[in-house]
């Protein structure tokens, strides 16, 4: 089975601090992969490198064949891979409907059906400002914004933070990390 994610000796350092020390990873197609480690082990840093959000110090990484160390490829990666970060800050001044519209404009394969069903299922009020949403509601909104992108692959970093309910996610069409 071919791999969606492949890394070879991937490293990230911040000055003298080694955040990630040579990770070798292979995630095959049609799989769900959990990524476990202690606090400060470098999980979030690795995920951000895979998303092309931060530049690796050394090593090789590819998602869907795109080089995570290339600026141009990093844009293609983010077109095809949705990410829910540990840091779920969204634009406080926007309403739910506005941020959905804003995010949709970046993704030609946006899933309107999924957007509508998740808005209802999560009970997100379209006219409410994000600054007035609870932490749990923000988490649900971040998940909606990731799921509805119509991406081929999802990377979720502590996706249920602040969420007490059991969420039934629309898992079927996606690969997960």
């Amino acid at each position, binding site marked *: 089975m071919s791999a969606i994610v492949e890394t070879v000796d991937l490293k990230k350092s911040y000055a003298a601090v080694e955040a990630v020390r040579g990770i070798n990873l292979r995630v095959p197609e049609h799989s769900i992969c959990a990524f476990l480690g202690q606090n400060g082990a470098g999980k979030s840093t690795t995920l*951000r490198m895979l*998303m*092309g*959000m*931060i*530049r690796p110090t050394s090593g090789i990484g590819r998602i869907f064949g795109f080089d995570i160390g290339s*600026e141009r490829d*990093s*844009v*293609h990666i*983010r*077109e095809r891979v*949705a*990410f829910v*970060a*540990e*840091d*779920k*800050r*969204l*634009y406080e001044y926007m309403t739910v409907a506005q941020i959905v519209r804003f*995010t949709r404009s*970046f*993704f030609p394969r946006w899933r309107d059906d999924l957007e509508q069903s998740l808005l209802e299922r999560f009970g997100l009020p379209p006219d409410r400002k994000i600054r007035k949403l609870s932490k749990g509601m923000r988490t649900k909104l*971040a998940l909606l*914004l990731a799921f509805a992108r119509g991406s081929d692959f999802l990377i979720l970093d502590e996706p249920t933070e602040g969420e007490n309910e059991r969420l039934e996610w629309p898992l079927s069409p996606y690969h997960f990390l």
Partner: protein
Amino acid sequence: MAAFTLSLPVTRKRLLLTRAAVAIVEAFVIALLSCLLIPLFSPMNGYQYPLAQSFAFGFLLAVGGLVFVCFSLLLSSLFEGEYTAFVLGICAIATAFFAFKARSIHRWSIFDMMSGAKHIDPNTYLLRTLPWAGLSISLLISFLLLSTSIEITRSHNF
């Protein structure tokens, strides 16, 4: 920048240029609108103030203001904290304001360029000419500051 923004399929260079474009447009709108208030309210006191003069002063404010806008962008690309760039920017501008009072560098004062102080007719209090040299230098400095911000952002990450 928030992780949500960075997860969008755009480069940081494009994000920075978009922020810069919005900030520059806002600076021009604020400068020009505030200057329009003078000709608007002058008739209430029985005076007339030329609209062209008002636009000229607004233009000086906007172009001089570009230096501060681009300086703020540079600070925000250098420092991560939410308020760090803002606080440092205010401190730097306050320091510059008082430093330009010194006689040795007073002729280089950007604040004088923005107010057109050296180009005002003392009899009519109207602008005689625009300070083209000051305007050109301001534009050049703004361009250099913005280019440096882009390079810093690109060298850190995508």
